[in-house]
């Protein structure tokens, strides 16, 4: 089972990416589970995902994310026992610091996790605003990422894209950096983010 945590601020396109990655993976005959912690933000998308035959579970976390880490572990164990997914995509709330979400993974007792990676989405259109207002949160998102996706590049100006790439590279030069547009996720990009698919 591979685990991919998708982080990013509210409205950055986490659910859209999760849906597209899930579709790319199911097209390669993989069993995919999506865990969402933002039922308010994704209410419509959640229904859409189910219409697309994607398997979605909701992580209910009370007021914030303090219980989310433990809930993730029990949900993963349940999925491992009942559904046997090859890929689990986890989308924590975009209104909370995601730094603790994977903290409880050492307690996981299911089938071994073949990979655990964090992908952070930077919305090129809004990053300058978000970074100026909330430097600590955006920095935390970037620092924790193994993969960084600069999104909405077809809508953003060249300067906005350059800014997003610069910030990502300055804060976390080790992370793999990708660009995407708002319309589609190419198979090449999906395989770059999920290399074991190719």
């Amino acid at each position: 089972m591979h685990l991919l945590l998708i982080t990013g601020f509210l409205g950055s396109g986490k659910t859209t990416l999760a849906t597209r990655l899930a579709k790319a993976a199911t097209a390669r005959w993989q069993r995919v589970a999506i865990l969402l912690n933002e039922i308010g933000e994704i209410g419509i998308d959640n229904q859409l995902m189910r219409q697309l035959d994607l398997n979605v579970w909701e992580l209910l976390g009370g007021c914030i994310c303090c219980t989310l880490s433990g809930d993730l572990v029990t949900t993963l164990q349940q999925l491992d026992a009942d559904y046997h997914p090859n890929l689990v995509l986890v989308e924590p709330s975009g209104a909370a610091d995601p730094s603790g979400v994977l903290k409880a993974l050492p307690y996981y007792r299911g089938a071994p996790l073949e990979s655990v990676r964090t992908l952070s989405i930077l919305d090129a259109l809004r990053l300058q605003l978000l970074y100026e207002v909330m430097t600590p949160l955006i920095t935390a998102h970037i620092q924790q990422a193994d993969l960084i996706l600069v999104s909405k590049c077809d809508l953003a100006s060249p300067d906005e894209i350059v800014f997003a790439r610069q910030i990502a590279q300055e804060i976390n030069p080790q992370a793999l950096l990708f660009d995407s547009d708002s319309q589609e996720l190419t198979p090449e990009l999906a395989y770059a983010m999920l290399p074991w698919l190719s």
Partner: protein
Amino acid sequence: MDEMNPRERIDAAITLQPVDRAPIIPLMDIVSPRLQGVKLAHVVKDLDLARDVMIKTFEDLGGWDATFFPGGLVTDVGWGIFAMASKLPGYELDEDDLWQLDEKEIMKVEDHDFIQKNGWNAYLAYAYPRVGAPCPPDRFIPRLIEMAAQGVKDTQVWEAKGISVFAGLGPQPPFEAVSFTRSLKETVGDVYRRPEVLEATLDTILAETVPMSIGTFQDLKKATQWGNRVAFLGATRAPFLSPPNFERFFWKYIKSAVNQLLEAGITPMLHFDSNWDRYLECFLELPRAQVILELDGTTDIFKAKQVLKGHMCLMGDVPASLLKLGAPEEVTAYVKKLIDVVGEGSGFILSTGCDCPVDAKPENVKAMIDTGKGYYPHHKVF
């Protein structure tokens, strides 16, 4: 040192005086129904039941120094009390699901003007129908009055058993209040695009809510034996802010609220969830030995002790994941580490990191409490 009674122990910890052991005050409102075999939906609908399962749990586990709150926090008004949407067990969710905040833009940009003209409480009543909580809008104000009366009644029930109630809800920090009802996304936009407008709204909220909260605490004190020991001020989103915005839109309001509460004789407890590591030194600006900082396991409480030792009481922070997934020996080891390090020189209250999770293992909760009662290596310090 002679054995203290719970109220003496709590007072000493807050004021950084010697204690016989660290006081223990876990937050048990959502785990208690599960431990007593009661579904969460039932305590949302029945506030007497919410209190009674907490009392039963307190007694079953051998008790501790005070109940954190007098009763359940989530009702059929949900977080509509803050004009924030939420999903509730027994309504939108299954009967035993944990409730969930529902991040939506309830407050529109034009509501800044409404709040500045009419006040925060007028806004909460005005916006409540948009929230979609189960309690119908025409019952909102009567329900709030019932809930206030319930708080008095619950406090009296605990006190009749000789147990004091630690916290009552204090004023919500204005930035947090707006970010809940306006959504964090839109509030961030306000910080960037209309900072003066946002600041005027925050000024309005502070000016209205702090005196109101002080009045509520004073009324409760008159109606009960002990009242609430501290006022709960909750925050979770402000540490995301960049330093200039943190100061302008959050911290100056905290300092003002803290000073006003202290002048009224009320101890502020800052229940600050998420990661405050980068802002720990700010807390040195608050009056010494009069304020509690409660952390949820995300902030490094050991670093907090280094920074704030001898300045303020820390409270926390047995992590939810440890209580849910760990073994009793691991809980014991963590509690001992807390007492060893954070408890050194007093100024520490042992608690859960935020809420005890709904599915915490009973043996882990017991290990936390029993270790707290039996372990205190610092007597020689005094």
